[in-house]
């Protein structure tokens, strides 16, 4: 039996291999499903819910769903799902402290990019203005906790040669925050610090001594909505 799976997303025919994650297959077929916590090749966390799609009338996160024969016609860009995603973006904006005009990641930030994509003019939820600290102890990295969206990418991906994570969560619920291992972070290499900044979807991890490298107008999401590269890859 062949392990090629055929299904549709919003009516568009897609093919992939059985067991592949839906979000990756979609991208290979030129369909953009937004992600914030997912990173191809890394064990999924399913923590942000922004990739929510509808499979057989049920809500599923596309980054945790291995495809099989039962996928059928998947809903992705329906007004309902777009509004759910917009609500998630708005929730993340009010939960942290996102002062975009003063943020180095502005223009290259995935959360902001989704705000643009869904034309968020104002969040529907009240701002929390929860105060969190900035950790500047590492010689290479700023950890701006006010902007963390708890995607766990840094925790899952940035490790030393012994497999120890540089980053970890501290606290629970309302007091949850991202933290950095002081001893490990004291000796983090330039390359790993850069990688940490690059994989962080927002401006929570910033490399010291460089900044505002891309001028306004040349940043990732200045002229084209997030996901355009994927949508253009297969037309």
């Amino acid at each position, binding site marked *: 039996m062949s392990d090629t799976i055929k299904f549709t997303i919003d009516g568009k025919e897609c093919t992939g291999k059985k067991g592949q994650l839906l979000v990756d297959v979609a991208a290979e077929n030129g369909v953009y499903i937004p992600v914030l916590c997912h990173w191809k090749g890394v064990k999924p966390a399913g923590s942000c819910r922004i990739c929510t799609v509808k499979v057989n009338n049920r809500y599923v996160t596309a980054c945790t769903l291995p495809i099989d024969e039962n996928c059928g016609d998947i809903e992705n860009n329906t007004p309902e799902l777009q509004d759910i995603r917009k609500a998630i973006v708005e929730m993340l904006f009010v939960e942290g*402290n996102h*002062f975009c*005009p003063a943020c180095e990641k*502005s223009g290259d930030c995935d959360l902001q990019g989704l705000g643009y994509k869904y034309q968020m003019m*104002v969040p529907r939820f*009240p701002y929390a*203005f929860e105060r969190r600290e900035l950790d500047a102890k590492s010689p290479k990295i700023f950890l701006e906790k006010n902007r963390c969206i708890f995607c766990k990418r840094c925790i899952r991906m940035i490790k030393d040669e012994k497999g120890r994570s540089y980053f970890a969560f501290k606290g629970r619920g309302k007091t949850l925050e991202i933290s950095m291992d002081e001893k490990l972070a004291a000796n983090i290499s330039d390359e790993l610090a850069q990688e940490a900044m690059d994989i962080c979807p927002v401006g929570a991890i910033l490399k010291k001594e460089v900044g505002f490298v891309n001028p306004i107008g040349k940043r990732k999401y200045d*002229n084209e909505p997030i996901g355009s590269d994927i949508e253009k890859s297969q037309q």
Partner: protein
Amino acid sequence: MSKPIIATASLAGCFGCHMSLLDIDERILKLIELVEFNKSPIDDIKTFTKECDIGLIEGGCCNTENIEVLKDFRKNCKILISVGECAIMGGLPAMRNGIPVKECLDEAYLDGLTVGENKEKIMPNDEELPIITDKVYPLHEIVKVDYYLPGCPPKADLLWEAVVALVTGKELDIPYELVKFD
């Protein structure tokens, strides 16, 4: 038919949003053909002299005077628009939110590195001065706001398109590049 009337104000803002409105360049000539200005720093009219159609407000509310002006605008304008990040979410002034007001004042007048001599430890407390609020409030947390124009400042083209759409009744189709949060 008389022209639609616009009023504007800067609350806890930096006037950058007003500057952006001036950035529409020569279209300002078209603008004064289209609309009439009432209370606004642009024409220096200090109090409402008639009911207005559109109120454009930059800046959030950081003190009691801001709140008074905002309520006055709500009363006198049919449509109220939050212009810019400060009006929409407090903006940079709201970076003090979460820090107790006393700590902020101590830093500004007593302990800050740039504070000169203040041996008597004087805090400005003249009764003429508006009282600082516990945090900086987005406008829509105080009065009903009808529309929002994001940006710091919102791009001149966005302000232009939005105002023209409102006064001509045209549908507003905003191009992707115009809505930015910075």
